[in-house]
């Protein structure tokens, strides 16, 4: 493979607003990077709306629904209602049975959002932050829900406040041992990760225990700062939600000395809010903005940090963040409206992660399950499992550093595909197009080929259908020969008008399976091939 240093890099190093052509190509790039699989209509609307207004409409976090009880083992909260403030039954075994029911509901809720809330950047931001504060699900799904709600509510908010809230989030307190960190037995786990992974980042080691941006002594001092918090109410039969709780008696009352990297400042004992004092000190270092902006860049734009990017792009993003007191939204506005973002070099520069792959197949076809609550939920769990088999289990990142495809040089997003996962990708593509679909409680769920084709510009025109499908599914134009082949599949090798006849027969009598089935199967066959093309694997 060719090394990245000889890859044709971006030409545009300007963060000024993009003012070039605004066609399906650019609008599609924006939507593919900020949502999980736009429809043709969404791309067309974005073209009509213009770049600026489209970005503004994307940068919103709308309220989302609640996880609902659907498993028969859930007996505390009624079927179809939420359990997020329900107690657990007494007894460890019964509580476990309920937890098993709730974690399924939570998983279905997480996955469903990717399928049904695809008009804003919310879910892409949520995945970014799940990868950033990469905690696994807590032993109490109510805590896991709180954690994922915090992520969603903070995802375009204030980064500094976000870190503070995350520090005393019950799931995080459990995940990185904050809950057992006290003056008698300090635990450095969270104190280390907040510096190394969550805020300022680990630089090169420049001395014993000195990682450029912080030292081992800062880790030890931070551990003392964070003492005193624990978690109460896990799987409680009386408390309706797990809570972070502070015990002053468990808190280290000493004055904590920080290193020269933090200006030799001290953190004086300040009880339950001392952690926030310390985080304020961390955020005085502009490196925090550089670190998080680099991560946003890698996630939304490209993994390759060329010298030009480090010199001309990241500092502009970081300065915007600092000027706005660590608000995330202005940075995202800057980035998504910049000339740099729309550089052709980035079109298809990332390999789709499994969630982008799966919903990049379903969402453009408006494929949303409309079975009952049980089957819809089971389907989402099933999709969750498919994604797990392809290397991405939402809610359970492989380590506190997140998924390796987001940080492991030099392969980065290539790490999403290997000999197993490529086969799993292709198998799933076949399954949901030309095979039976995903079996769910006696039903099957596959792409909705008719919805897809009905939403295109001229669905009765074979050439236009293929052009539109390429617009929806590929980040870059494919060759004329490839298009000809796709059209050959659509028409079955017959003249184009035969497709027109078939489609018009279906459009005249859409509920008649005799005329709809040929149209559906033809489109499914085209999709089966598209979904197995390397071009589709990128975004």
């Amino acid at each position, binding site marked *: 493979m060719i090394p990245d240093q000889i890859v044709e890099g971006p030409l545009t190093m300007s963060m000024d607003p993009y003012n070039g052509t605004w066609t399906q190509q650019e609008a599609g790039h924006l939507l593919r990077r900020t949502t999980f699989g736009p429809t043709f209509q969404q791309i067309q609307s974005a073209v009509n709306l213009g770049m600026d207004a489209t970005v503004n409409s994307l940068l919103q976090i709308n309220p989302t629904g609640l996880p609902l009880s659907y498993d028969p083992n859930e007996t505390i909260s009624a079927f179809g209602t939420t359990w997020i403030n329900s107690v657990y039954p007494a007894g*460890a075994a019964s509580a476990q049975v309920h937890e098993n029911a709730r974690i399924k509901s939570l998983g279905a809720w997480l996955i469903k959002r990717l399928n049904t809330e695809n008009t804003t950047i919310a879910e892409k931001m949520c995945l970014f932050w799940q990868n950033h504060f990469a905690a696994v699900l807590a032993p109490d799904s109510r805590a896991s829900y709180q954690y994922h709600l915090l992520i969603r509510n903070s995802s375009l908010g204030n980064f500094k406040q976000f870190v503070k809230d995350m520090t005393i989030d019950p799931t995080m307190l459990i995940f990185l041992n904050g809950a057992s960190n006290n003056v008698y037995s300090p635990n450095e786990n969270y104190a280390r990760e907040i510096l190394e992974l969550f805020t300022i980042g680990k630089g090169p080691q420049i001395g014993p225990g000195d990682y450029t941006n912080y030292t081992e002594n800062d880790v030890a001092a931070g551990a003392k700062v964070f003492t005193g918090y624990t978690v109460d109410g896990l799987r409680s039969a009386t408390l309706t939600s797990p809570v972070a709780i502070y015990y002053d008696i468990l808190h280290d009352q000493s004055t904590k000395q920080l290193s020269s990297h933090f200006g030799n400042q001290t953190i004086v004992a300040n009880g339950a809010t001392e952690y926030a004092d310390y985080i304020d000190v961390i955020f005085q270092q502009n490196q925090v903005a550089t670190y998080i902006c680099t991560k946003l860049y890698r996630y939304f734009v490209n993994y390759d940090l060329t010298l030009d990017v480090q010199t001309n792009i990241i500092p502009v993003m970081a300065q915007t963040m600092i000027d706005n007191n660590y608000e995330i939204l202005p940075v995202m506005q800057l980035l998504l409206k910049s000339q740099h973002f729309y550089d052709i070099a980035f079109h298809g*520069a990332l390999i789709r992660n499994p969630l982008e792959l799966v919903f990049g197949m379903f969402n453009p076809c408006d494929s949303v399950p409309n079975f009952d609550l049980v089957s819809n939920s089971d389907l989402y769990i099933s999709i969750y499992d498919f994604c797990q088999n392809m290397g991405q289990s939402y809610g359970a990142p492989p380590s506190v550093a997140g998924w390796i495809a987001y940080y492991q040089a030099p*392969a980065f997003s290539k790490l999403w595909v290997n000999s197993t996962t490529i086969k799993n990708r292709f198998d799933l593509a076949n399954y949901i197009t030309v095979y039976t679909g995903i079996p769910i409680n006696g039903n099957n769920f596959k792409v909705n080929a008719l919805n897809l084709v009905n939403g295109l510009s001229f669905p009765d025109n074979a050439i236009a259908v293929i052009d539109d499908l390429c617009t929806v599914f590929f980040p870059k134009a494919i060759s004329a020969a490839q298009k000809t082949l796709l059209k050959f599949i659509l028409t079955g090798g017959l003249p184009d008008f035969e497709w027109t006849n078939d489609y018009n027969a279906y459009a005249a009598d859409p509920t008649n399976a005799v005329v709809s089935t040929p149209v559906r199967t033809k489109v499914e066959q085209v999709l089966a091939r598209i979904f197995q093309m390397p071009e589709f694997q990128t975004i």
Partner: protein
Amino acid sequence: MKRRNFLRNMTLASLATPFALKGVQYKGLAKKLFNYSKSAEDRVLVIVRLNGGNDGLNTVIPLDQYGNLLAQRSNVIIPQPNIIQVTPEIGFHPVMTGMKNMFNDGNLTIIQNVGYPEQNRSHFRSMDIWSTGMTDISETRGWLGRYLDSVYPNYPNDYPNAANPDPFAISMGSEVSSTCQGLMSNFSNAINDPFAAVNLLNTGAVNDGTYFGSHMEYLSILIDQTNQYAATINAAANAGSSLSSLYDVNNPLAVQLRNVAKMISGGLKTKVYILNINGFDTHDAQVDANNTMIGNHADLLKKLSDAINAFQNDLGLLGISNRVAGMTFSEFGRQIASNASLGTDHGEAAPMFLFGSCINAGIIGSNPVIPSTVNSQDAVPMQIDFRDIYASILKDWFEVPEIEIQPLFEQAITYYQVLGACNVGLNELVEERDKGIVYPNPAVNNATVRFKCHNERVKIELLDLNGRQIRVVFEGDLTYGIQNIPFELEGLKSGQYFVVVNKESAKESIALTKIQ
């Protein structure tokens, strides 16, 4: 990789104290590299991962600690009379008859109390540590991947190729193994069914010199490689065979191991196979409420023991047992005290098993000490670092020089001798397997007599050509199984001698030539 340094290992082996006979049959120190297996290039390592954290204390039971164990885990412990006695100090769970046979036949090593310092009791983190062979959280490559990266730095570019037509590693199942994660790619190929045809569509893609283009090239290589590997795997699986009747078709691990035997015997050059058995996270219902000998943990151990025993039997029948060694591991053991739900919680160190006819059979390490008072959450402390075992396998089995092994790990490696003499010629020829031999033969200063006995008293004499006794080499009670008793020849003149094994059940006389 360079060939084994035969002399070096001879020296190590001769460090055994030949006349410290009490318990010598357990230590396996006497096995020498007689009949040692083929070159490292032909050797295969089979890794069985016990996912979830295996309860070592109910697997390899320290009989000398039984009283204190009973006090801490009375609701899960195996009743003493039902434990399979392996040695006077060590017993197996009653379902592990297969592994007991392997131990008796010199095909099993128990490594006691394996773990790492400052045990992390999180499944994920601890499994990461066991997979990467490092406690450093930033390390993402697996221990085997790290090694393979150093030998094949360009992988997956231009693989498979003429020199390496087969996958380096195969992970049985649908996930690649994190032990084989390299920098660019994972060295393991996940195979659910080696007989399944894989024919991924390759629509072709052009590298236009952009980031997009580099992905097109990568994906195109990957699709081709997946198809090509699948083809060689397919061919090997179809060419190979399996001769053992011991595999249980209802035991998924056994079925996978049978497929591994077929691929190896069919000529696949894959060096590492990784298998997985889930369900060891026995927080509750580890045992049946009315009978601690049955339940989830018993089912798992039976699957494990039966499957590995069948596999070993198969390798012997196929005549390839000198090419295959195996290892089990789990992310941690479980706590000493059981909990109230008939289960056990996350602990620390636990035993590992090595298996194969060429491993240094016996027991490495000593029984854990169970104190009379145990605090909640107390677990078995680590005695042997798992990274030392990994390193020892690389050194002994794959003949990787120490100078290349040390940089793969964080801590200074302590090597254990994990490879011994192969039981080849015994396992492979069933009619020969019980016959006593002396090795090496001719011998210079040290030799070992190997024979099979029942639970009986055995006296071994060294006689000259005229039948005069020179000395008694050994006299004592032995347990059932293959025995290896080392002895010295120093000071004897060159010439012909006899080693006579006087068992209660039989008497064997074995000729020995002494040379200078």
